[in-house]
């Protein structure tokens, strides 16, 4: 007997009882059993189909003696896995707060997919020539005397490899070597791409510097307007820094969500976009305007103007230096293009 106040099975654990949970678990277990049974059945059927064949026996499958098709399959496998990994990366790249198990799974997938992409075609290519592409023995004829027609007898195919050393054989060997080299080259290229090896990017730096200067000059102009028009020095300094931050973002140096002003300007200085002293002065003014309650007056305003003037002068010098280089580059390009 159960006492009236005795808790039920679900109440003892403190967890709510979900209707149908036992049934769902039973269905999941049944699915697993069915999947294992299907795989085991297929394996058994394959073994029974050719009991005399070894593991590496080519048998009479469609791929027998079709090395080109094997190569195509290997290349297709490479491309497929490369696409899969690219898609997977785009899906999981930005996931940062993963639980440890998911984190380990992601790391394992990142390493195993490239290995599978490269390893399986290589194994296939190395095993294919060593496999015994021998004709299988004829299937036993059914003992059915009622059949009026005689069963067709098995005719072994003519040997494809003559074993001679003629020109055709050498040509075939050369084509095979070339094909293997092509697959290996593809494998190396795919591996480099998957491992994200750096590639030299010529001309990127010059073009980007020019963009930075133009955008920063716009930002300096807008910040000056803010300083001139603004009656509140605090708001003017903040607006000036915000304009500079926007321009840096446009030029590729974005403010990350957890960046402090110093972090952002360190990156800009490292990239050569801004000079440390002027940027530091402007950052210090921004700090004071944004995070303190100091009364801000014309002194702060004049210091902000001085920092902006210094930055504008620096950008002007950089633009003047960059202009002859651009002209020279354009002349080089026109010389190359003209006959």
């Amino acid at each position, binding site marked *: 007997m159960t006492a009236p106040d005795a808790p039920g099975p679900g109440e003892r654990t403190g967890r709510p009882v979900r209707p149908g949970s036992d049934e769902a678990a039973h269905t999941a277990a049944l699915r697993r059993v069915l999947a294992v049974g299907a795989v085991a059945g297929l394996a058994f059927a394959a073994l029974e189909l050719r009991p005399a064949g070894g593991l590496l026996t080519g048998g009479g499958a469609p791929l027998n003696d079709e090395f080109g098709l094997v190569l195509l399959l290997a290349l297709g496998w490479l491309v497929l896995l490369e696409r899969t990994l690219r898609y997977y990366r785009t899906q999981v790249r930005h996931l940062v707060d993963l639980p440890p198990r998911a984190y380990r799974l992601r790391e394992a997938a990142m390493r195993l997919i490239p290995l599978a992409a490269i390893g399986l075609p290589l194994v296939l290519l190395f095993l294919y020539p060593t496999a015994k592409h021998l004709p299988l023995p004829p299937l036993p004829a059914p003992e059915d005397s009622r059949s009026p027609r005689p069963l067709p007898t098995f005719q072994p195919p003519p040997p494809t490899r003559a074993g001679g050393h003629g020109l055709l054989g050498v040509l075939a060997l050369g084509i095979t070597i070339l094909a293997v080299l092509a697959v290996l080259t593809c494998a190396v290229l795919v591996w480099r791409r998957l491992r994200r090896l750096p590639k030299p990017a010529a001309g990127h730096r010059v073009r980007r510097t020019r963009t930075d200067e133009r955008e920063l000059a716009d930002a300096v102009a807008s910040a000056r307007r803010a300083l001139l028009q603004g009656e509140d020095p605090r708001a003017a300094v903040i607006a000036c820094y915000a304009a500079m931050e926007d321009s840096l973002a446009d030029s590729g140096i974005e403010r990350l969500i957890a960046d402090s002003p110093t972090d952002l300007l360190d990156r800009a200085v490292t990239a050569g976009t801004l000079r440390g002293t002027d940027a530091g002065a402007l950052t210090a003014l921004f700090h004071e305007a944004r*995070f303190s309650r100091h009364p801000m007056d014309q002194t702060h305003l004049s210091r902000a103007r001085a920092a902006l003037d210094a930055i504008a002068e620096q950008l002007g010098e950089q633009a003047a230096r960059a202009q002859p280089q651009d002209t020279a580059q354009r002349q080089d390009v026109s010389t190359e293009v003209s006959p």
Partner: protein
Amino acid sequence: MTTETLTPQQAGQLAREVLAEIERAVVGKPEALELVMLGVLAGGHILIEDLPGLGKTLLARSFATTLGLEFRRIQFTPDLLPSDVSGAPFYDQRSGEMVFRPGPLFTHLLLADEINRTPPKTQAALLEAMAESQVSIDGTTHRLPDPFVVIATANPIEYEGTYALPEAQLDRFLLRVRMGYLAAELEARMLRARVDRAAPEAVLRPLSNPAQVLAMRAALERVEVSDDLVEYIVALVGATRSHPQIQVGASPRGGLALVQLARARAVLDGRDFLTPEDVKSVAVPALAHRVTLKPELWVRQVDSDDVLAALVAQVPTPQTVPDKPADSLADAAVARS
């Protein structure tokens, strides 16, 4: 005891002079020295955790000398008793009464060397002293000198014969400092300095005294902290509690430690207002020893410093343009002036 008042700028100037003097003896460790100075300014206790021979004891002694503080050292051993630390009453034959004899705890700066070599009972003798600057023995409470700073050292690689500090005691430390090996160039400079001075250690000048240390601490209270930065600190501490790799997050005491250390950083820079950089620069030393990682991370040898550094790189800092209009800030400034 505070006889003088210092502005944050004056306190920062004095602190920088003290650091410059200590750097004559402790070569090549400016970050570690700054962090210890921040701990002293913020009125907390410092745990230095690193390998033997990296200058932990020298650092503590140099601070005591330069700050003009009374210095004592306890070498923690497995057979050390709580009364060896805090003191014990003894019978005075002349007066016929039990008289309290203070232990080495009664000093300004205490170096608790290799604190994880002593059993938890003796470690716990420090708890009340570190938290409340007092010792209760036989029902009597004895105040410790002011300022009272504990600089404890711990060796992180030995497990045999050591007792890991419990979380409650780790939480008492304001920050944890790691010293690390010197770079080759700095190590060469350290050896050259040793050869040139022809003496085991540099002789340091006292540049301060206990009253000035208290005045420097009082200057911290004049450092402004904007509401945005308070929210940022709360977000940082809250993130440790919801991080998937952290089992136990930082306590509210961790948030208080972060505020005070960030203010000390501002003072050291000669400012009287806090910036996000101040908070970010001390977040890992202030919080990393207060969190407990999940067990699977121990197997992967992931350090809490790494987890906290990644966390700091994810929590949003205050935005550039404040939600509150600039006019209200100016009004507040006028009202304050």
